């Protein structure tokens, strides 16, 4: 399975061509023998090349790109594509959770502050009546909101510090079953010094 989650098979070029020609359906081969049509010519989507250590990969890819119908990607290029697509997509999805949490929390906190302010309408009216300026009243509400926020933040931080080790243990377990993070498969798949891909 490739990094995008699609099934993929890696084999030599000779095997790939044999698969596409010699193992064509029987009726197709019969038709070819009768002269009714050629067996479908072999086609290859991509070729993976392992280069000698110390080879100039930039030169190799630049040379391959001179054929306008070919594309050549080094390992670095592919890693970049992977990061820009799969990893970036995952990062955005993960980043969405704090975003949603933040929005929901903001709405809940705003409602709490609104309710608390409404409950204090009589006291606010008293303050206005005895001549308290608006900034004093707003200051009291902001002070209350800040105390509420600081308390929530402190409790949240304490909870994180308390349970973070448990989360780390869970992550390790998941990793050992190869279910959580494709880092190991990445390292093995991308281990050759360079890859060059393109249709032939």
């Amino acid at each position, binding site marked *: 399975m490739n990094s995008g989650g699609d099934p993929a098979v890696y084999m030599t070029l000779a095997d790939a061509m044999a698969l596409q020609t010699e193992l064509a359906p029987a009726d197709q081969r019969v038709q070819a023998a009768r002269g009714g049509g050629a067996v479908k010519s072999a086609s290859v989507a991509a070729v993976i090349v392992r280069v000698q250590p110390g080879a100039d990969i930039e030169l190799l890819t630049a040379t391959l790109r001179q054929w306008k119908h070919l594309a050549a990607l080094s390992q670095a290029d592919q890693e970049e594509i992977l990061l820009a697509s799969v990893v970036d997509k995952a990062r955005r999805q993960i980043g969405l959770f704090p975003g949603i949490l933040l929005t929901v929390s903001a709405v809940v906190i705003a409602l709490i502050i609104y309710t608390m302010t409404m409950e204090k309408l*009589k*006291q606010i009216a*008293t*303050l*206005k*009546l*005895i*001549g*308290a*300026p608006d900034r*004093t009243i707003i200051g009291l509400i902001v002070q209350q909101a800040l105390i509420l926020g600081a308390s929530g933040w402190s409790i949240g931080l304490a909870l994180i510090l308390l349970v973070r080790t448990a989360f780390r243990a869970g992550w390790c377990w998941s990793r050992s079953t190869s279910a959580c993070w494709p880092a190991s498969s990445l390292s093995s798949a991308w281990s050759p010094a360079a890859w060059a891909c393109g249709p032939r």
Partner: protein
Amino acid sequence: MAIGDVLVDVQGVAKHFGEGETRVDALRQVDLQVRAGEVIALLGPSGSGKTTLLNVIGCILDPSAGRVVLDGDPVFDGKWLRSDLRRLRLDKIGFIFQSHNLLPFLTAEENVALVLDLVGWPSEKGRERARELLDYLEVGHRAPVKPALLSGGEAQRVAIARALANRPRIILADEPTAALDSKRAQLVMDLLRKLAVEQEACILTVTHDEKIFDRFDRLVQLRDGRLVTE
């Protein structure tokens, strides 16, 4: 009793709520003068305009027409003549309500000192004055206590201390003795009278309590928004 300058001068004040068929005339051509040292009771049935008149004098409600002069300072003449009504209330007017309306998160002393803090008194001096007033009103021993732990009479006396803290010359009280027994009510009225004389202030009180009528210099009767007897 020595009667001094005119502190409240209400001339031809009217106040109506709503328009057309729903129009309610709460006050109609009310004229009233109150002098320093006077303690006046505003009487009348429910809906006669007593609280509305108190709110107009306290610069809380806009009159629909008329002229209001407080402590020689014209504040309303068809429109408000001052933009800083908050400051006017802070400097010249003290409010006492039927329920004490003390701020529950402050102690009795802090409730009184708050007004002085708003005026700009130094904190220490404000607390000293608050303690002095609470002692005078015989609730000094309850100064560090929150309002929830005060009895009705104690809380009302703290509210009176708050209303008098920065020596306002106009004190407006809306049924200040309604939550008190008759003994406490008479005590509170005696205190108000004494303070009015000492601070050269005037006191306008809305009340229905006949037992304290003898504590007032004048009884002003309102009916359907009009002054009917004085």
